[in-house]
Structure formats: C-alpha cells, structure tokens
C-alpha cells in the first residue's frame, strides 16, 4: 500500500482523527501528532494540512518546519481559527453563524468566492461555504483574497511568497467533515485533496467502529 502524500497535523482531537481514519481518506492523509512532529516526518510528503482546533502554540514551535516545507515548493492548507503567532496575518474572532441556512438561506455570510481558483472551481455555493470561524483583518502583502464575507473581511486567502503555496481559510472542512453533521462536505474535501496532491477520493464517508476505543502506540 502506498504511503499517504498529505500530512494532517493533529493534536489528538477526535474529529481530525475521524476524518483521517475514514476509509475514503485514510490512504491520502497521514496523522502527524504535533507534539512528536519532526522534519523527517514530512520530507516525503507533498502537502500539509493544519486543521481547525489545532494547538497553535505547539505549531508555532515548529514554524520553521512548515516554512521549510513551503520553501521546498510544496502546499500547506490551514483551516479554522488561527490566532497564530506563526502566520504573517491577523485573525480575529467572530460569532459562528451556523444557522444562516435556516434563518436566512438567501443571504449566506460569505458574499464573494473566486470560483476560478482550483480549490473552488466547479463547486456550488452551498458546497463552497457552510460557516466560518473568525476572519482575517490583515493578510500578507503578497497574498490575495479568495473568499470574503459581507463585511469584506477575508475568509480565505493564498500566497506563493514562501516558495510553495500557502492557502489559509477560516472554513473548517476537515474537522466538520469528521464530525459528519454537515452531509455535503465530500464535495469540498474531495476537491481539496485533488488540489493538494492530484488525486480525487471516491466513495462515501464511512465510519468504522473498530477505529474507536483504540490503544495508541
């Protein structure tokens, strides 16, 4: 069996684990426990994913590993909150509106998405946005906004200034897909996987009970 090409940096959160253990995704994503992460663990990988509910302080301690990875021309995808000390950007908290589709379905909080970007190309609006966790009020000078909210605050941005591609969003596709309460996130996560490593996962998101209640080496 081939090794996964995407490293999912994880801090023991169950939804991150659930995503990476789903048979559909497990062949593409390798869990990398943040507190044991070293450069040698990412050398053979093509992309890194840093999910929502990450330990930002622990990631900041490995900042050089991430930027070295980018300098090698590879891709890094960052999602969710990022009150980080390791991004040249300013994240601010906002209330999470995860019920707009019930209260005001014609007016989603996101107002504009660049559907020419390969991550979003071909996605329907309801597949490109569900809710966000905060906004960026400042992004790096060389970065471009891909998705903004009604207040023109940045939800998703991208830059190539570090060598590879750094794409940052306050959406939370990995964690939310692991939670499995939103049932249409295959569209986004499959597109994300294809954008990261050129392979589109197939099939349904299946949970295997034997993956729960496990020992950890």
């Amino acid at each position, binding site marked *: 069996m081939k090794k996964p090409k995407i490293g999912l940096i994880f801090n023991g959160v169950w939804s991150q684990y*659930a995503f990476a253990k789903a048979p559909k995704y497990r062949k593409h994503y390798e869990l990398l426990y943040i507190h044991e992460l070293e450069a040698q663990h990412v050398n053979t990988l093509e992309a890194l994913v840093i999910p929502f509910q990450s330990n930002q302080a622990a990631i900041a301690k490995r900042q050089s590993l991430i930027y070295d990875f980018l300098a090698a021309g590879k891709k890094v995808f960052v999602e969710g909150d990022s009150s980080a000390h390791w991004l040249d950007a300013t994240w601010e908290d906002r209330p999470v509106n995860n019920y707009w589709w019930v209260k005001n379905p014609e007016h989603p909080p996101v107002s504009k998405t660049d559907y020419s970007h390969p991550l979003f190309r071909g996605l329907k609006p309801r597949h490109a946005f569900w809710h966000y966790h905060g906004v960026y009020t400042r992004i790096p000078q060389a970065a471009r906004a891909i998705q903004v909210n009604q207040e023109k605050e940045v939800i998703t941005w991208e830059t190539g200034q570090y060598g590879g591609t750094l794409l940052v969003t306050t959406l939370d596709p990995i964690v939310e897909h692991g939670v499995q309460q939103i049932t249409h996130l295959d569209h986004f996560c499959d597109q994300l996987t294809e954008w990261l490593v050129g392979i589109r996962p197939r099939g349904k998101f299946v949970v295997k009970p034997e993956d729960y*209640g496990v020992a950890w080496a």
Partner: protein
Amino acid sequence: MSTLNALVFSNGIEGIEQLYRSDPGVQYDFLTLGPDHPHDFTAYDLLIAPNGTDHVALYQMRREIAEFLEEGKTLFCFDGWFTDWVPGNRWVMDNSQKSKEVRYHIKDDPFELRRHFRIEDLNFSHGISGWWACGYIEPGPGAITVLVDTWKRPLLVIDAQSTNGLMVLTASGPLGNSSYATTDDAKAHQAMAGLYQGLIQFVKQMNVLSV
C-alpha cells in the same frame, strides 16, 4: 464541601478559558497538554476533558487518571474519546443516522438532573436538531444512562461502578458554564449550562456524602 477544585485539560484551543470560569463553588485551573506531562492531580477533586481534548495525551496519562479515580474522585469527559483511556466505557463515532432525525430523551434520572434543564431546549439550536452530541457511548456495567438519542443509544452516562470514583461522560456533548462556539441559541445555551450546573451540584453532594 464548599469549593470544588477542578483541573481542565487544555489543548491550546482558542477560547477554552471562556467555558469554565471560577466562582465560589468551583475553582478551575487549566493544564495545557504538551510533550511533557507532569501529572500531580492530588490537589484536585475533579478532572475535566472538554470538547476538543487531546486524546493521545490522555491515553498516555491513563494510569494517572485511573489512580485519580481510584482515590474516589471525579472525571468529566465531554468529548469523543477515541482512545481507550476512560475506564470501563467506550465512545463510538457514528454517522449512520441523520442529524434531523436526532432527538434527545431522558432515560434514567435518579439524581433529578432534569430539575436543572429542559430537554426540549437541548434538542434544538436555532431550530437545528442533532447539534449537541456525536456518536454514542457503550457504558460500563452498572453505569446509569441519563440521556439517550432517538435510537436509545446512550449520550450521557454516570458511572460510579467501573472505578472507585465517579465518571460523568457525554458522547462529545459539550457542557460548561458557557459556550464558545457550539451554540449561541439562548435556550440551547441555557439547557447546556443548566445541565452542567446540575452535574456540579450532584458531584458536590456526592463528595459531601463520601466524606
């Protein structure tokens, strides 16, 4: 017992301190989990694993947690523990049922927790059902199942049998004084916070009885 001394496991996630705020009844400390785990829980009556806990770290700490429980103390786990660190009980993720079909029901309530919250308010956040818990619990023998879902699967379990202590476990249903990002629906929030306060009062009563 006038004040419970509680230790909350922190995973470095934004906003965790907002969920548990000290008051005359409970003094909260936070332990940020990391590569080194100095674990001296002797000063505490209660350990709390909140939503977003590091279950790799807690698996590595499972013996210390078991010893803590054997001293007759209390563990709250309000998260999906995919590793086997909770003595006698197992949480299983499941996506076989649709959220819109999920309803929560009170099953056994010998401690009258229903006095502290309205189950109908816990059921919906902004009209959306199935928002609070994920998966289900396989309880240890003799554990009390307080809440179940539509399919009678345990969601809130109180286990005073598997160890010498007390465990209050939810199927990843968040509980605390406040909600950071899970819900801002006033009724749902009140149900969540009310149930949490009921559990705190229950633990304090149990501690008084055991002194």
